[in-house]
């Protein structure tokens, strides 16, 4: 009986280690986008895994583990920042409506600039965009994780990308103003 208990314990440990291996990096990047602090991001990720170790293993469907981790991390972040305004007002004029075309890839923009621009967005865009670019969750799971409707997720991803393209274009224009032709333009559907 003791051998069986030890075997189960060892199995659980292996499962946990696999889960950590598979998800800790993406969770950290998501946490960093939320907190903008490396220490707080690491704390959030650790706290999320501790919660999993305490409760998450009760989940009957192991395929939901990833979604559970992201959802728990996000809720923990919200709990810790309840006093802050999570839904900052967005000036609609800032956000291009409709879908933009992408004509060029801004090779000149470095990784740090992409992150800086992405992390500078209000959380309503930042959270769904980062989850999208982490490639870990589908738009349905993102909606579940953030507790918002699917349509809202799509809208925020679409608008967020448009803002990102515009900012990246500005970044490129700033560095090499003569070389870059405007990359993005509005492509509103004809009414």
């Amino acid at each position, binding site marked *: 009986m003791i051998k069986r208990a030890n075997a189960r314990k060892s199995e659980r440990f292996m499962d946990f280690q696999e889960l*950590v291996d598979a998800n800790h990096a993406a969770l*950290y990047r998501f946490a960093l986008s939320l907190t903008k602090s490396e220490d707080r991001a690491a704390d959030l990720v650790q706290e999320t895994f501790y919660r999993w170790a305490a409760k998450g293993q009760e989940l009957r469907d192991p395929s939901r583990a990833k979604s559970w981790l992201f959802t728990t991390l996000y809720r923990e972040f919200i709990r810790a920042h309840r006093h802050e305004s999570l839904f900052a007002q967005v000036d609609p004029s800032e956000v291009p409506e409709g879908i933009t075309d992408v004509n060029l*890839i801004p090779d000149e923009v470095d990784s740090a600039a992409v992150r800086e621009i992405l992390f500078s967005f209000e959380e309503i865009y930042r959270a769904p965009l980062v989850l999208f670019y982490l490639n870990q969750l589908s738009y349905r799971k993102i909606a579940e994780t953030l507790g918002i409707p699917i349509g809202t997720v799509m809208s925020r991803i679409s608008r967020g990308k448009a803002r990102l393209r515009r900012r990246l274009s500005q970044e490129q224009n700033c560095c090499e103003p003569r070389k870059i032709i405007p990359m993005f333009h509005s492509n509103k559907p004809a009414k």
Partner: protein
Amino acid sequence: MRSDEAKFILSAFRPRGEDAGDPQMTRALLQAGRDPELLRWLDEAREFDLFVASRLEGSTPVPAELKTNIMIGAQVCESARRSFRSFLIGTAAAVVLLVGSFGLLLRSLEPLAGWQLAALEVIPRLSSGQIPFDEQSNDLGELQDWLKEAKAPNATTLPLGLSRLGAVGCKTLSWDNQLVSIICFGGGKGGFVHLVIINRQGPPHAPRPSSPHWIERSGWLTATWSSGEQTYMLAMQSGRAALKALL
């Protein structure tokens, strides 16, 4: 599906194609297959998304110690939980013991039935000779015959230990319009032993356990049980071990 609707949906299409099986995405992708302009837009959007995803990953190195900290921390938490669990188990055990002790205390305060109290009132006076036995004999059979004749409750089955003792005498008394019989025995290690018998159809609240129910009261140790149509109480003034040896 219109192209602008398809674009809106495909904005959330992950660039490595993970969402291709999603029904909504499938419809939008089919639309892109029919619309060259939309397909071009999708190709460029995916290229852009792959670019951003790779830049985001490249720009955010994960602290090397994070994984180790998670694993160690989880083990520490597990160990703390185990300690807490042990504490809970210990506390629960203490509560059970406390409740058990309280149960024993309650048992010592548990009231005897009226017929039992009436019998215990009479027995000392019988033993001291203040009141006489109805029938005196060292032969238990004779006492049982007498009780049968008197239509008083009778011992149909006796514990083995008790049958080895010598009988002294018997007495009947009336309690609440019911006859109660007392048979006294002598020669046991604890002195006199008294068997009190009442018919089960008598008092409605008479205890009816098949195994002895122990109550200690005013210097008397009593064991009460039921068998057949009778309820018996064995009472003596010495320790439980001596009384137990008779049952």
